[in-house]
């Protein structure tokens, strides 16, 4: 490696011992082709790859590093190529992404949303607010990968573990598009820690209840205590179709987990309950169902229900 290359800001192959090689599943990231002749610090990844950076830049984006670097260095601190070295717990791939965001150079995009989350967690740890905001903006713009499919359950679990509240909220809402059962979670269960799964289950039930409540007010002809007429005996008695949809009802609760919790799903269940026959309280004969609100959900109501969902949060 030439001396010019050695002074480049980027990956400089560090001391890769045999253990690190054995543990490495993916090859080290490609070096960034940027020359920085006056690097003042080396940060070393957990897999022993060295990154040359400027102390001043690092201190500017990260108050944590700012404080760390302002402290007097111990006399036995390691020096590499004449530069002080700081050992970090993040791997080279992650540091490659973060370092690429410190300078006006080509950004190294995380390969997956999981890696986006780990990058965001590192930003959180080092208090790199601007970099974290930039990554979030890139995800929102679609430039960086976002969560897809049932992967959102894993995303939620990882975000919980890392304390990434916005990502946790976002992932929790995305899980509503999928059933949430042990069968569907399967291997993903391993990613959940502590109360994360219980909180997600509670969130799901709150979303379901809020959708049901909203439906009751949005469809005025079928309020929460409507009357059902029996064509056999003429009895009229109060009938509350919504009660069958609230999570206090065991069947409804089960449906909340085996089905998605979306406006169209809840609207469909509501229509079905309205139209289904039941038993007359007086003559005990089968009473025919009520005309429902229709099988299609209007765009206006769907939008209203979606707004209701947006207001439900993981943490009360």
């Amino acid at each position: 490696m030439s001396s010019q290359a050695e002074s480049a800001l980027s990956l400089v192959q560090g001391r890769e011992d045999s253990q690190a090689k054995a543990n490495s599943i993916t090859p080290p990231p490609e070096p960034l082709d940027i020359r920085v002749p006056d690097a003042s610090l080396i940060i070393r990844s957990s897999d022993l790859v060295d990154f040359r950076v400027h102390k001043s830049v690092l201190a500017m984006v990260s108050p944590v590093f700012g404080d760390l670097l302002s402290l007097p260095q111990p006399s036995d601190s390691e020096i590499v190529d004449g530069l002080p070295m700081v050992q970090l717990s993040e791997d080279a791939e992650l540091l490659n992404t973060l370092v690429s965001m410190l300078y006006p150079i080509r950004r190294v995009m995380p390969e997956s949303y999981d890696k986006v989350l780990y990058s965001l967690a590192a930003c959180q740890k080092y208090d790199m607010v601007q970099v974290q905001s930039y990554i979030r903006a890139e995800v929102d713009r679609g430039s960086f990968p976002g969560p897809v499919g049932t992967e959102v359950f894993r995303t939620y679990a990882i975000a919980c573990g890392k304390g990434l509240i916005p990502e946790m909220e976002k992932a929790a809402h995305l899980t509503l598009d999928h059933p949430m059962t042990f069968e569907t979670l399967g291997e993903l269960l391993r990613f959940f820690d502590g109360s994360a799964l219980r909180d997600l289950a509670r969130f799901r039930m709150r979303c379901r209840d809020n959708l049901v409540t909203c439906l009751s007010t949005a469809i005025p002809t079928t309020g929460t205590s409507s009357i059902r007429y029996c064509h056999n005996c003429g009895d009229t008695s109060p009938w509350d179709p919504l009660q069958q949809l609230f999570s206090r009802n065991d069947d409804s609760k089960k449906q909340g987990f085996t089905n998605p919790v979306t406006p169209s799903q809840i609207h469909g269940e509501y229509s079905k309950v309205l139209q289904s026959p039941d038993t007359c309280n007086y003559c005990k004969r089968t009473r025919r169902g009520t005309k429902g609100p229709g099988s299609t959900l209007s765009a206006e109501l769907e939008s209203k229900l979606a707004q209701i969902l947006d207001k439900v949060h993981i943490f009360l």
Partner: protein
Amino acid sequence: MLTSDQPLENILFEYHGADLILRSHDSHHFRVPRSYITNSSPALDELIQKALDPPNDACGDASLPVVQLPESGAILHSLLTFVFPVTPIVPPTTEKAMELLSVARKYQMVAVMVRIRDRIAQQNPPSTRLDPALHMYSLAQKYGFRQEALQAAQAILKHPVSIADLEEKLDMMPGTALHEFWKYYVEVRAILASDLEQFMTPASDISSALGSLRCSASGSSQIPRWFCNYITSIGNAPHLFNLVEFNMALARHMRDEGNNYGCACVSISSQIIVNIWESLASVVHGSLKKVSVIEV
């Protein structure tokens, strides 16, 4: 046997002939005869030999050699009650009891482990209630105790298992333990379903258990349809294997067949019910025995 600046409560014995001091991480001293310890634990024997060779400078009261151990005084005290001929003391909580067991395993105290397990079983018989079972399963997974994990898993099987059913208890088990339990549950269901299908064939014991019972709603196998449905439901949800659910299934059938005086199930004898239940129980227990391996 126990000395320290702040003695533990409930010191139950003082052993004579001590030639060694075991010191806990919280500085409690246990004055014990070395031979008892080394006979009970090859691991402690090795540890003591290493600690005393060369003779250590750390001497406690009466100039006895001291061996430092990383466990707390409370756990060591409890452990030693299983080594010496005194009344054994199991810690009051399940967490601490599992910790005691794990310390006994760490020191390769095989006979002591047996005694601890016996004592735990005497003092706290395995609960079939869901909360203690989930708690025990989680602890057994944490410490890697297969026997306790299996026992707890079988207790959990007596309850409905779905996210909707467990919602408020989902935080009692970490995701890894929940995943391991789910794998066990899936395997149990598969084996149960297969064994119960076999059970419903005419060649199985069920035919003799049913005797001359002729149900008006029998399937092609001459086994009452309500019973077939009930058995099939156990394969999907093992918690339905209990006498209450069985009687409810029979009651539902009798209600549906209320006007059909030709159905023998309406006057089914208690002996036939006992026969059916014992045959079914034999199959279910046999199936559960097949799924004895839980990854811990």
